[in-house]
């Protein structure tokens, strides 16, 4: 344990660098390394109390704060939106405590922390994506308890996840699956990829950059190293479908992005990724 005086002497500030003390950060980094070595597996870590409520991104925030450095440029989005209050608060917390730059532009960022979206503009191999995860275990709900779910993962028994897919087909005729469709990582590990929309599920495959997942409330981290093989869980004769808005974005006319209906102006559809939408309309310089 370091006293406040010693901390101040080291950092020139009574607060540790990047909010978390070094011991905590090392613990999170170890979990991340283990997660990268075991793609898709849920690795437990001692999730700390954060200045935001659990379930609001505290896990991803711990991951970001453990890897961020003064040369980083941080972007935080909430459902694709840089301007959401939660995203802004976390972005400013990271940038202030880690003394680094912040941005809303995907292309400029070195670390993108996101709630439930993979940025529309593909990330490069020198960028890092950190996803916030509320429920890391796709077997947990039907298994009834975490211990049973862990045993099923260990046995490679994913029947319960298939049961949910079957129920989906029977009750809703498949197709319109909700957010966070479970995926198979490298053909063997079942992973809940956080509630990203169906649009983003196929985009998890073969990414050139690592993806880190932080679940603060349930104290788990997961990771996909670059070029991981990721496939949505779907029946052989029922290919995974992505529902399409069918209407162009009212802001940038995009027909290819993930569009959501505006709550302010019902009937109009907009790109969920605001930075992508702006970059389409922004004059090229």
């Amino acid at each position: 344990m370091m006293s406040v005086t010693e901390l101040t002497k080291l950092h020139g500030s009574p607060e540790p660098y990047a909010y978390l003390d070094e011991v905590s950060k090392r613990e999170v980094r170890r979990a991340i390394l283990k997660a990268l070595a075991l793609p898709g597996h849920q690795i437990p870590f001692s999730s700390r109390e954060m200045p935001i409520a659990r379930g609001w991104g505290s896990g991803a925030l711990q991951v970001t704060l453990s890897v961020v450095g003064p040369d980083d440029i941080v972007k935080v989005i909430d459902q694709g939106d840089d301007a959401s209050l939660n995203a802004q608060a976390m972005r400013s917390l990271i940038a202030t405590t880690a003394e680094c730059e912040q941005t809303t532009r995907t292309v400029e960022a070195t670390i993108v922390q996101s709630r439930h979206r993979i940025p529309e503009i593909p990330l490069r191999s020198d960028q890092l994506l950190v996803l916030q995860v509320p429920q890391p275990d796709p077997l947990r709900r039907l298994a009834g308890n975490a211990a049973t779910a862990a045993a099923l993962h260990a046995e490679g028994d994913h029947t319960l996840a298939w049961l949910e897919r079957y129920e989906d087909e029977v009750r809703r005729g498949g197709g319109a699956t909700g957010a966070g469709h479970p995926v198979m990582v490298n053909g063997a590990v079942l992973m809940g990829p956080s509630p990203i929309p169906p649009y983003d599920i196929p985009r998890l495959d073969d990414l050139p950059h690592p993806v880190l997942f932080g679940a603060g409330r349930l104290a788990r981290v997961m990771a996909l190293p670059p070029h991981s093989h990721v496939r949505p869980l779907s029946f052989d004769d029922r290919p995974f479908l992505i529902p399409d808005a069918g209407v162009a974005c009212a802001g940038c006319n995009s027909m290819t992005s993930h569009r959501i209906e505006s709550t302010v102006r019902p009937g109009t559809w907009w790109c969920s990724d605001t930075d992508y939408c702006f970059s389409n309309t922004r004059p090229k310089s």
Partner: protein
Amino acid sequence: MFETAERLTTRDGALDSLAPPPPALVVENLTKRFGGGCPRCFQLTGPETSTSRCGECGSVVALHEVALEVGSGEVLGVAGESGSGKTSLLRCLHRDLVPETGRALVTGVGDLFDDSLSDRRVHTEVAVLVHQSSAAAGLSPSLSAETNVAERLLATGSRSFGEMHLRVGEALSGLEVDRDRHANVLATFSGGMQQRVQLARALVQPPPVLLLDEPTTGLDPSVQAASLGLLQEVVDDFGGATIIVSHDLRVLRLLCPRITVLRFGRIVESGLTDQVLEDPHHPYTQLLVSSQL
């Protein structure tokens, strides 16, 4: 020429049917105690002392050195009053209880109690239990009837929805579950209908062992009659080993050619159902038969 050949085959066939079928399930030396146990438990309990509770340590001897064989396609009835160990026997064979000693060899699978066999594998691939409570039989009340039936197909690796949908639909319709109810949540089904869903779950991919626990208890008499008719068809067609546990001797007489009588955790009599029920040797069996309404 033709006639002789035909007669020969029929005679061979007849001879085959007289020979006992090869055992599909062999249970040996099955013992289960509830409680700490002491060296004198087995002496102080049993039909001789008329208790299953050990006077020395208070443990309950649910089963002691129970042994039985069921051939493939054969139906064995287990009779006995409440507390005789009937349900403990089924729960052991369904791996809900871990026996102290004993083996249950299933043809093609091995010992049911082997640690390398997971509980879920036992439930989905080896022994299917039909129980008064769907939850106890391993079904999820919050999922649709169809999904519950499909579970055993999914567990064994089927990944074609269309094919499973067809097989499950046939299994459910075959047991007179209306097609427009297949997608309904199991919790909305009546007890009798839930039993049909459980039977469909067993028949969609017949397991080596089928366990029926009190199949008619909790059903009203008219449903019981329909259910018995259906059960008779099911167990007659079923190719694996079936064990039916019931305190209702009429049910066993109807469904099982062979019967075993349990009392205080011990087998007191077993044999052909007609023989045992018409001419019971053991005083307990005599009591059971005479106490029928």
